[in-house]
């Protein structure tokens, strides 16, 4: 009997071992990231398909409240505009973007782990893949920290950032700890530096939808500008722009020749045309942005209206070269009517993916530029300005202006004198009695030092911010300059006639709402929230704190 027991125990243990091999068969046609081809395919999914454009654009000074009587809004937009922590759900809400970015990070980490499991990045292709994965991971974290934390401040090492995730998720519901912003930035820099030498274009089938070389340089350009490492910003910007930056910029002349017809969509599609040099990294997204900021009534209660267009953005900037909105090659679209007051640029196409054509159901999509060459040129100008190389900054701005304005003004040259004169000619915004008058020039309260108001450096920065604001209008990128430069902005309500009527709220320099609140479901899952004042003190403060740089 004992013999039998022994035998059967032996058989059992052998059975268990061989069973494990038997059970290793994957249950379906899933796959594992364990070959070059598969890792390459996996990285297709390391790019976000949601966007921040709605919540950062509506939070910025690019829009005003057109008044309670304007019916074209919903609760989601109300929350975005009023800097309230978002509780509504939408494809464009902070939660979608948060989850999306962390999924990109997870995917990038999976690709990196796949490369490790193959013995490391030994071949040139694997090196390129590793670079792409690192860039995707760095970009996603970069967007996360800039949205969900206060802006980077070299002097405040304790500012709370987001989690920098470097390995794939293994457990059901792991609890992640938040790092500081400075740690986040250091990690991003590390990933970026590791990636940049290896990034290549050769292995992409659709390079503009991946981190190609130029996209990587554009990312580095923006990152090092934010990181206050201006040399590096200039270095990488120059790598992209080359010796003749003009040829790299958007062909605005071509836009002027396109039919100004939304349904033909040729203008917005040109902005995101993969064959153009100005596009570096194109991202697709489930988005209402082209509708809310397009020729529809939808969402028009909060609008980039004629007053802003005239006094802060389009016309205010054109005054530099003595023009108005008509002096741009890519002319703005101006809409007015009952409950409609909007100046818009068609930067993004509105595209529809039908899932059920009969019922007319599907997804709203758009394509947008994560970075453009135009932005890189402006970044370089800003870096020059910060390094006191004002002539070089003016040179870059001249290139941009000549490319942007109509041919008759094509010989315009920007000089430092023109900058200071232009800026001296106008008041700072919100300096009037009611604190709501617009101006291109706004008080800056950055965490780093610049020359006093009225100085050449400050004037040049003012101009560069205005140029970037125009260039990225409706794309939600203004918000990052508002944070970076400590610009205080109001929540301003307009009269029916489109003039400022009242101010309901102010975003102060250190207003905690500059860090978008961690999404509700993430907080419920145990993530540390961003601080918010217990009471409504900030909502009551209607007077801007302008005294910091005044004296």
């Amino acid at each position, binding site marked *: 009997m004992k013999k039998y027991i022994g035998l059967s125990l032996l058989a059992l243990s052998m059975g268990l071992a061989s069973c494990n091999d038997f059970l290793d068969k*994957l249950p*379906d*046609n*899933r796959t594992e990231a364990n070959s070059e081809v598969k890792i390459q395919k996996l990285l*297709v999914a390391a790019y976000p398909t949601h966007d921040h454009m709605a919540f950062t654009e509506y939070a910025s000074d690019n829009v005003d409240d057109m008044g309670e009587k304007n019916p074209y809004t919903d609760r989601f937009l109300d929350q975005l505009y009023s800097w309230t922590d978002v509780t509504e759900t939408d494809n464009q809400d902070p939660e979608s973007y948060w989850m999306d970015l962390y999924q990109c990070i997870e995917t990038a980490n999976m690709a990196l782990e796949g490369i490790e499991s193959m013995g490391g990045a030994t071949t040139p292709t694997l090196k390129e893949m590793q670079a792409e994965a690192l860039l995707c991971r760095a970009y996603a974290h970069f967007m996360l920290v800039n949205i969900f934390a206060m802006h980077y401040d070299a002097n405040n090492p304790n500012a709370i950032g987001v989690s920098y995730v470097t390995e794939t998720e293994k457990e*059901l519901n792991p609890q992640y700890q938040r790092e500081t912003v400075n740690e986040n930035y250091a990690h991003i820099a590390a990933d970026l530096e590791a990636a940049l030498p290896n990034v290549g274009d050769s292995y992409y089938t659709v390079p503009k939808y991946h981190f190609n070389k130029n996209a990587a340089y554009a990312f580095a350009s923006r990152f090092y500008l934010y990181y206050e490492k201006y040399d590096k910003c200039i270095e990488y910007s120059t790598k992209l722009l080359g010796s003749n930056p003009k040829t790299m910029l958007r062909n605005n002349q071509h836009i002027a020749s396109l039919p100004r017809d939304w349904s033909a969509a*040729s203008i917005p599609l040109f902005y995101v045309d993969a064959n153009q040099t100005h596009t570096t990294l194109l991202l*697709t997204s489930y988005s209402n942005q082209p509708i809310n900021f397009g020729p529809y009534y939808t969402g028009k209660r909060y609008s980039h209206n004629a007053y802003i267009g005239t006094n802060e953005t389009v016309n205010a900037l054109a005054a530099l070269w003595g023009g108005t909105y008509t002096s741009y090659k890519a002319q703005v679209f101006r809409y007015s009517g009952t409950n409609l007051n909007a100046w818009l640029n068609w930067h993004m196409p509105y595209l529809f993916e039908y899932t059920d054509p009969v*019922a007319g159901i599907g997804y709203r999509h758009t394509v947008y530029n994560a970075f453009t060459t135009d932005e890189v040129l402006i970044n370089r100008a800003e870096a020059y300005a910060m390094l006191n190389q004002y002539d070089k900054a003016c040179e870059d701005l001249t290139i941009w202006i000549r490319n942007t304005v109509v041919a008759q003004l094509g010989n315009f040259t920007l000089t430092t004198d023109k900058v200071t004169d232009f800026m001296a000619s106008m008041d700072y915004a919100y300096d009037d009695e009611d604190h709501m008058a617009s101006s291109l020039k706004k008080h800056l309260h950055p965490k780093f030092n610049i020359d006093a108001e009225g100085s050449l450096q400050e004037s040049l920065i003012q101009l560069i911010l205005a140029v970037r604001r125009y260039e990225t209008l409706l794309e939600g990128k203004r918000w990052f300059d508002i944070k970076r430069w400590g610009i205080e902005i109001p929540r301003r309500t307009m009269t029916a006639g489109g003039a400022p009527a009242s101010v309901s709220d102010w975003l102060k320099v250190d207003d905690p709402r500059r860090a978008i609140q961690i999404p509700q479901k993430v907080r419920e899952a145990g993530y540390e929230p961003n601080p918010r004042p217990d009471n409504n003190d900030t909502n009551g403060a209607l007077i801007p704190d302008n005294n910091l740089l005044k004296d």
Partner: protein
Amino acid sequence: MMKRLSLILASLFLYVGLALAQTKVTGTVISQEDGEPIIGASVVVQGSKTGVVTDMNGQFSLSVPEGKKIVISYIGMKSETVTPRNGMKVTLVSDGQSLDEVVVTGMQKVDKRLFTGSSTKISAAEAKIDGMADISRSLEGRAAGVSVQNVSGTFGTAPKIRVRGATSIYGNSKPLWVVDGVIMEDVTDVSADDLSSGDANTLISSAIAGLNSDDIETFDILKDGSATSIYGARAMAGVIVITTKKGKQGQARINYTGEYTMRLKPSYSTFNIMNSQDQMSIYQEMQQKGYLNYAETSNAASSGVYGKMYQLITQYDATTGQYGLANTAAARADYLRQAEYRNTDWFDELFSNSIQHNHSVSISSGTEKSQTYASVSAMFDPGWTKQSKVQRYTANLNNTFNLSKQLTFNMIANSSYRKQRAPGTLAAETDVVSGEVHRSFDINPYSYALNTSRALDRDTYYTRNYAPFNIMHELENNYINLDIFDIRVQGELKYKPIQKVELGVLGAFKFNQSTQNHTISDDSNQANAYRAMETPTIRDANPFLYTDPDDPFALPVSVLPYGGIMNKTTNKMSAWDFRATASYNDVYANDHIVNLYGGMEVNNIDRTYDWFRGWGMQYELGEIANYAYEVFKKGAEENADYFKLTNSHERRTAFFGTATYSYKGRYTINGTIRYEGSNKLGKSRSARWLPTWNVSGAWNAHEEPWFEKVFHDALTTATLKASYSLTAESGPSWVTNSLPVIKSYNPWRPSAGLRESGLEETDRANGELTFEKKHEFNIGVQLGFLKNRINFEFDWYKRNNYDLIGIVNTQMGGQKYGNVASMKSNGVEISLTTKNIQTKDFSWTTNIIYSHTHNEVTELENNQRVIDLVAGTGFALEGYPVRSLFSIPFRGLNNEGLPTFLDQDGEVTTTGIYFQEQDKEKLKFLEYSGSVDPTDVGSFGNVFKYKGLTLNVFITYSFGNVVRLDPVFKNSYNDLNSMPKEFANRWMVPGDENTTTIPVIASQRQNENDSDLSYAYNAYNYSTERIAKGDFIRMKEISLGYDFPKVVTDPLKINSLSLKLQATNLFLIYADKKLNGQDPEFFNTGGVAVPLPKQFTLTLRLGL
């Protein structure tokens, strides 16, 4: 098998004593039933323990002391006490309860006295509903604790079977089917909720549709954890064991069974559908409200009488110089008057009384060395509705070889082929925005008859999807052909090296292939819809046309300029099982019975699904494809699939053991353990293994020496059982993320040139993923009164389901599925059988079955949308039953006749219901209507027998659930729709809102004022107004059978002859009045779903 088994059992109980100087007696024991010798009957000297067991020929040889009698007994037979006589022949008579004495668990056969679990045995002969080809439907009302909902009556569609209710929230709760010891795997995973979807894949959802019901001997339904624990990690939702017939030793017997079934056409008299006159008056009102005018109706996507009239008015015939209809008031009125008088009976047109017939021939024969059962059957169903033909052929061979006293071999080969036709259908889709469920191109005859205006003419082509449509023509040209082949071969070798030990090896192979060919022929409406562009208005409006996005000046073109569409879906499954077992049975010192059983098994299942859609198949031009390239461009731009392939693999392996100890058959304890591994949870070795177990005990009080003294005959048997167990299930088939799940996908890109395929992580890893588990505590009582003339069984159970798959909101991965949910349930089951009258010629038996189950989800993170909770089968919310249906609170009609509701913000609204609301707090505005699973089910059956005559009256009932009334309300109707009679009470003029709750037929103006009016009407369809109780009492079966007596059969040289006339599903004795003819069991979802018909079956049985 049974006889061999009893040999073992007998050897357990008997002690072969020393022979004293006595008379040697030899004899034979035979069964009265079939005249066959009984193997293994025990022959004991009365009052002693001396005895022997009959051999293979039923013979025994025993020394009997002078003057003593001998007792001959056998399981399932009445014991005989006789005076010994040499060469004697003892005939044993069945005690009528033979089936109950052995419980078949699929792996083992266990003496009922030693069985500690809760199970019900059903004889197929008794339960079988003649004329119902799928035997699983016959289980309705047959066993306490088992609910069978015939959510669709189409052949091949499985009924929704639940053993003791739901056991999972996202999982299926489908019981495990075991046939002759082999687990039947589904060829495709159709969830319990999807069984009612009406989609084409429901036609292959029944795992046992290929079984000839005449081949089935018994069902054993294993209910509690103790009974099912040998299947441990697969058996959380119960097990249904089917045992098929086997050959018997002796003369060959041939039996023929013929079933001839006539089904009644449904009748408008049972539904409240308007006749054509009332319908036309509604259309007139619609016309007054701005609908059905010329401009819109003649170019509308769908139109009926009015659309046709307008088309005729513009239709010019050059040869006669006439228009199809003169455009005069008189001619129009005349045309409409014809429609008013038409009263088309769609049921009559689309249904038929044709006879379904099923023929089955079986042969049973055997010798001492081998026994054979073989059968063939053919079923022909010309179709209750148009395009629903079925042919099914089955063959079954079951052979047992007794190679030696030690070695037996059993082999079974079973195969079936089914050819079926069904109306063409696409999968239903829910518009999550407006809440409307729709199925494009639906031509289901039943829902067509219910939903189509009776003012339409059967031969006229009206308009649907901008193309000509006629239901008769469409059914001819748009259909699905199914070919289903399945085969199972298995062999089982049993070896008894010594008396007490048996070793067994079982191997089985299963293969199933089902092919669905959906033919949409050249001239069908569905094909024509893709090229309908008669007028520029239609061309611009037709969603099936394609506009090239790359060309800003492009006009819509057809992607199907020629031919039709060919869809092909193939599901293939091949599986093998291997099982090795050992058992040890012994009796120590007469009193201690020990039963050990253990083994291991391996299962391997490979499934392949592939799908293909061919555009431009010219069926009428020699079946050659002629396609437009745009169809590929369009598909690429829409991210649509051109063809699909999915391979999946299931691997399981398990080790199990069970031990039973019984003291004198009085006190029994049992323990079972199973250690199961599955590949379903991915490669993680931590998740894939799970031990399950059970401990249980039984007390057979009637075996106590005092029992008879106390109760005499009043109480004959009494058994008390209790068990506690852990069983499990590997969760929903799509939750497999113990390691990350990476799948290929095509990301959306703005143009075809920018496309690339990628891999994405669809599920993040969950290293803690494990099986869904269930603890169950069961107490059972069995009492037999008055020599078992009254049998009473009672079971009470309490279940705690935990580690159920539920949703977890994570910090970075969004929603993940993990083992975080739990639920609890409890219930009681009662079955009572009484032999009210039992005389020589007449008997009357009553069977009452009742079961109650209650479940409640105790822990569940929820992310359901409003639409998920109010539509279909609802969903679970914490604190509610597992399938709860909620309703939008109706707040009356407003002064325009539009319905108003309480919305998610606590305000009263007409169109403000946001069907995609997910916020837990905001969902609280929904009103709980009830569970969609019945809580109280059972039956009441009476069998009267007089000589050869048998009258059976069988009533089933079901209570405690709610059903959603058909969604008939819309914001705008066309002249195709029919309307229920409740429209007669609709809101007509202001003030009516005080007296009626039927909303107004919204005017054109009302629709213009509010473009979201469809939300209001869909909300109404899902409101508290549109819910009814699902309770019913159904006259399930009345049958009269007659067994012809010997005087008739003998001269004909036949063994037996019987005739039976059976009426099935005759009528509902009770149902909620609100249902108005809607079958509470049936989900009218279109597609291929039809209810169970009322039918009459004549059965002829002939034995040679």
